[in-house]
């Protein structure tokens, strides 16, 4: 475990969609440590608990990281009012991150809504060897599809209401993609029912699959045991911790039936 905590400058703040914001945070040391799938723990003035937000991009040249978040409650609402030049207190990089294979292996990333951002670094890693299946509530929530495309990744979009891309859930497209060409690995992040469905497909097709999970957190570093998630190892169930043992878990380890 190697992370830093400090107050850093927001190099760039952008609104990406109706309720979705992107921050580029200048933090050289953190940027040099960060890997795909890790997260940052953001302090929001006036709130006692930090907010965990995945690292969407590591920008080594700029000595920066990028995070993308959705307004979901009071904390993220307050965060969204920050502007370029403001400071932000973060702890990062936290958690384990995704296991990346050699870039010439084939990967599919599956993202649901605000589960999409942590997958961008994976697409950048595999480039043209990657495909992305991205699902959103509606057209007004679609984010980052150009970023995935720029990385060389083949993007397949769907929305719940059909207002952009295919109408329906990511799992339908994923099945087609698995049928079309079996990849070496799957990576998924999104709502729990989606993750459960992806894990089931991965098992069915016999493809390795990594999932990025969410849980309410306090410390973010494994000290408080707050962010428990049930996992199975060697047939035995236990509570692992999303912040330290995760947020990325092998799909077969995750116990969904709580």
């Amino acid at each position: 475990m190697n992370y830093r905590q400090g107050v850093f400058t927001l190099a760039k703040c952008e609104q990406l969609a109706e309720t979705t914001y992107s921050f580029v945070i200048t933090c050289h040391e953190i940027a040099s440590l960060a890997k795909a799938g890790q997260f940052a723990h953001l302090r929001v003035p006036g709130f006692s608990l930090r907010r965990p937000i995945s690292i969407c991009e590591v920008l080594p040249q700029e000595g920066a990281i990028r995070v993308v978040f959705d307004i979901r409650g009071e904390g993220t609402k307050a965060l969204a009012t920050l502007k370029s030049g403001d400071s932000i207190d973060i702890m990062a990089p936290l958690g384990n991150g995704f296991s990346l294979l050699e870039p010439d292996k084939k990967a599919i990333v599956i993202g649901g809504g605000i589960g999409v951002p942590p997958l961008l670094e994976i697409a950048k890693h595999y480039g043209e060897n990657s495909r992305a299946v991205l699902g959103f509530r509606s057209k007004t929530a679609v984010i980052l599809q150009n970023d995935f495309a720029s990385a060389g990744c083949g993007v397949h979009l769907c929305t719940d209401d059909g207002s952009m891309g295919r109408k329906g859930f990511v799992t339908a497209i994923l099945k087609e993609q698995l049928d079309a060409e079996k990849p070496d690995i799957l990576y998924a992040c999104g709502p729990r029912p989606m993750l459960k469905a992806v894990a089931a497909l991965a098992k069915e097709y016999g493809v390795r699959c990594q999932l990025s999970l969410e849980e309410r957190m306090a410390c973010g570093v494994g000290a408080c045991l707050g962010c428990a998630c049930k996992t199975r190892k060697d047939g035995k169930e236990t509570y692992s911790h999303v912040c330290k043992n995760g947020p990325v878990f092998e799909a077969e380890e995750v116990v969904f039936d709580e």
Partner: protein
Amino acid sequence: MSNLAVKIAGVTFKNPVITASGTYGFGREYECLYPLSALGGVSLKGMTPAPRMGNPPPRVAETPSGMLNSVGLQNPGVEAFLDNELPYLKDKGTVLIANVAGSTIDEYRSICERLDNSGVHMIELNISCPNVKQGGASFGTSCENAASVVRAVRPMVKHVPLMVKLTPNVTDITAIAQAVEAEGADAVSLINTLLGMRIDIKTRRPILKNNVGGLSGPAIFPVAVRMVWQVASKVKIPVVGMGGITTWQDAVEMMMAGASAIQIGAALFTDPYAPIKIVEGLTKYLDDNGIADINSIVGQVQPW
């Protein structure tokens, strides 16, 4: 330079700042920020004789100036601690406090016996746990139950001091403090968390899967100061104060109320450097005010 060291029941802490049980794991998680030796002591995650899985998630919820937790004493059990954690912690240059819990008096006895001569420097008996043999009310909520746990473990703890950690969810915390003092506790620490609840109005479900949880953080600070002040005036043994301490000013306030040392819990989650900043703040406070020894402020509040 002024003296920051304090002595509690014979154990010397290089400064009065201790991280609170359950908020600092077994001391590894913050080590990439600062060494354990910067702290006066570390109260380790509460342990039970056998491993415990703890409660299902969600286990934490935010509240105004505070948080709820229902971790439920997840821990690897005392043997795993002795095998995997203690050897690593032993030479870190800070006082190690083993926080222990049980569901029965026998469990408390067995874990205390196992830890007494193990290398930890102090045992902190968490008596806020439910007494499973007596309907589940916490041991710490009646004088009789509190006394009976301490009576049972007292003979087991011969090599290190025995500190008893009190729950604030009682009508008269001074009575409990006096009861455990009478049974030979070497110190008391307080307060553990206040019982609280939050409900998600969209799902109409408690946010915590355990329905209720323990409230900690700045919200409870005034209650903690009051209880420490009350207890300190009623017992002769040292009092370790905690509950919502976030700044060095809070630490001074708690020590003036009667705490010989203080513990920092929830504040870590907002700022992992909180204990370090508090040590620095205390040092500067002593210097700025020409106070030679931190011990001279303990209990110095003058009531009206």
